[in-house]
């Protein structure tokens, strides 16, 4: 039976690993109407199906992979990304993590919008999806392999398929383990550990079904228009195809906002050796694109000299250059390439790994830990050989790597001695490479992100480009709500962040409306999309409230609020408690959240059409229901 709206396959695949059974369910029309797809689907399903206080690494947690209506349609920017949604084992909160490649399109071609994985297998398995033929297969021959080796072996058996896979870090349930699809990562929050906890090594998908849209001619016209705009735009038509994302090292360092030595400073005097220009000149091998993407922002690089000569990787992207570069006081580019490859092999999030290692380096230099704790490793800033060794130990969950792999919060609990002051995280997720002290909109974006320390809910891009005043404080809370509405709806469509400048950098636009309406045949307005985004964000927030989250959790690392930037052009900047509170007030006011608790008010939940969750988070309503 055809689904009411275009773009959707109309089916959910449910896989119970405890029982070893798979079922296909019909996607409900109201799910498409109220949540669009991707992140929206995942937020609703996770909220409904994973109970409060569930162990993220236990059988109660679920893994949801989802796409939106536009995946597989050929529309650039929204053609092939996939989201993984689960309860994070790193911070026990809602997690959505995204990856590029071709998995999303192939999942749609196989006839599914969503995969729900539940339970736990008693033996290592992988999931094979070939349209209506879905099997849970024994993975003993690929268990223990790194991500590339395992995927290569699977591709031999299933040509023309796409894979998502964990490495040894995921198998070992390292809390900062990620999942890898091809050569691209769903990096944040520990989704790899959840795969590992379920003994799920990989998912293979292939298919050849059509994606139906109401009027293919209109979609084709829009595709051509969008391609022309992407090509004409200096960022997507010139900069990203040539350099990828690495130029931001220079961008932030020139204005003194590049995290350095565990954010003790934000100006790195060794940055010249790890810039995008240096990377391109010294290490570039070839370009790499996601399925059907005209931008081609991926850059394959190789270490051409030194002890890591021959290390080949897709990247390092900007975040990784910062994580293992300036933030570890390391400007040996070849070691960063090797670190990136090591993380991809093991399936480790480069951002959390780099943050945890840089915190350990600060603890080492300040005498909180010694070589007795590190297994003999010297951990001074810039000790790049130690970085590589530590990544291997993290992946194997051995030695000091066992402590690091738990993330900064748990590592601080292990080390003690006041080391929590050096844990640079928000809500237990390590902060990425965007200055909260310098980019004030990013500060409030971090504090109110449902994931925690993520730059994918709030965004720094417009302030970094000077389109929005980077120094302005008043109104930045209101501003960042508009940005979060754009990212949330964008994550329901699953559009690539590289096209923000095309589709809308600071708010929802006519392009978002056009994509939804052209593909689905709905007739949504901006107000409809804002309501959908707010509904999804409120559900994520409610998921975290059930875990105990309140306004007090909407905060920043102590360092960002008490230690001014030490040197460089942004010297003296930090975020005061008063500033953060002002911006939280603005955010809550615009969102309709309670100023004291930070909960979405009952009126807001009712207005968003999710009054059924009121009793879950308001005690008085619980009693009324009972």
């Amino acid at each position, binding site marked *: 039976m055809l689904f009411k709206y275009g773009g959707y396959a109309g089916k959910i695949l449910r896989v119970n690993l405890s029982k070893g059974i798979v079922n296909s369910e019909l996607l409900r029309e109201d799910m498409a109407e109220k949540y669009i797809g991707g992140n929206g689907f995942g937020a609703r399903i996770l909220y409904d199906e994973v109970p409060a206080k569930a162990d993220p690494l236990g059988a109660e947690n679920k893994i949801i992979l989802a796409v939106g209506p536009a995946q597989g349609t050929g529309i650039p920017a929204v053609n092939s990304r996939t989201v993984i949604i689960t309860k994070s084992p790193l911070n026990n909160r809602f997690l959505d993590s995204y990856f590029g490649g071709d998995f999303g399109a192939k999942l749609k071609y196989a006839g599914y919008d969503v995969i729900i994985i539940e339970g736990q297998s008693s033996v290592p398995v992988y999931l094979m999806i070939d349209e209506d033929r879905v099997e849970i297969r024994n993975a003993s021959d690929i268990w223990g392999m790194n991500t590339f080796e395992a995927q290569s072996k699977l591709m031999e058996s299933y040509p023309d398929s796409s894979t998502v896979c964990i490495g040894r870090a995921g198998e070992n349930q390292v809390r900062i383990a990620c999942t890898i699809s091809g050569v691209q990562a769903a990096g944040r929050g520990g989704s790899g550990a959840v795969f590992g906890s379920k003994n799920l090594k990989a998912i293979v998908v292939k298919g050849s079904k059509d994606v139906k849209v109401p009027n293919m001619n209109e979609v084709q016209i829009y595709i051509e228009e969008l391609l022309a705009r992407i090509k004409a735009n*200096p*960022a997507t038509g*010139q900069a990203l195809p*040539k350099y*990828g994302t690495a130029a*931001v090292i220079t961008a932030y360092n020139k204005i003194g906002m590049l995290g350095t030595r565990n954010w003790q400073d934000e100006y790195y005097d060794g940055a010249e050796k790890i810039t995008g220009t240096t990377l391109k000149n010294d290490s570039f091998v070839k370009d790499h694109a996601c399925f059907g993407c005209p931008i081609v922002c991926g850059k394959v690089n190789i270490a051409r000299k030194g002890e890591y000569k021959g290390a080949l990787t897709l990247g390092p992207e900007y975040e*990784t250059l910062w994580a293992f570069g300036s933030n570890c006081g390391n400007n040996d580019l070849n070691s960063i390439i090797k670190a990136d490859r090591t993380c991809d092999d093991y399936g480790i999030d480069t951002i959390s790994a780099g943050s945890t290692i840089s915190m350990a380096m600060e603890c080492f230099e300040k005498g909180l830990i010694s070589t007795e704790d590190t297994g003999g490793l010297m951990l001074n800033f810039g000790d790049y050989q130690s970085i590589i060794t530590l990544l291997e130990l993290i992946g194997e969950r051995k030695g000091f790597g066992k402590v690091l792999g738990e993330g900064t919060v748990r590592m601080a609990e292990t080390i003690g001695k006041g080391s929590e002051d050096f844990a640079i995280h928000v809500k237990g997720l390590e902060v990425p490479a965007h200055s909260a002290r310098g980019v004030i909109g990013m500060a409030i974006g971090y504090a109110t992100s449902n994931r925690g320390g993520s730059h994918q809910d709030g965004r720094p891009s417009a302030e970094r480009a000077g389109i929005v005043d980077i120094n302005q404080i008043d109104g930045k809370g209101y501003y960042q709500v508009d940005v979060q509405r754009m990212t949330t709806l964008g994550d329901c469509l699953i559009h690539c962040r590289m096209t923000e400048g095309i589709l809308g950098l600071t708010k929802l636009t006519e392009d978002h409306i056009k994509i939804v309406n052209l593909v689905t045949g709905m007739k949504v307005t901006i107000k409809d999309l804002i309501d959908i985004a707010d509904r999804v964000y409120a559900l994520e927030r409610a998921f975290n409230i059930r875990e105990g989250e309140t306004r007090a959790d909407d905060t920043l690392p102590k360092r960002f609020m008490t230690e001014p930037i030490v040197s460089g052009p942004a010297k003296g900047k930090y975020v005061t408690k008063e500033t953060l509170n002002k911006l939280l007030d603005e955010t809550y006011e615009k969102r309709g959240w309670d100023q004291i608790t930070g909960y979405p008010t009952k009126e807001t939940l009712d207005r968003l059409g999710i009054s059924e969750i009121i009793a879950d988070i308001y005690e008085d309503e619980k009693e009324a229901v009972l």
Partner: protein
Amino acid sequence: MGQINVSVRLEGLSDKTKFILDIPIDTTIKGLFDQLVSKYGEEIRVHLYDSQTNELGTFMVVLNSRMVRLPDEFDVVLKDNDKAYIISPMGGG
């Protein structure tokens, strides 16, 4: 008319990354862009302006370690030995 000397670095944009320009006194940031386009033509213009709409592209300009907001600060006047960076702002990971 007197001249000043200004260096311009492009990061993450074009293959050509360094420019040393002798430009008239009182040249503004906008004037600098015009000089670059005039001297290097399409090779530089495609990095500064959208070739479909002719609107200013999305990039970061740093003048002597100070971020310059465009187009609001197009009329900032350059001085001798100023160093300008024009940088792609596209991050990722």
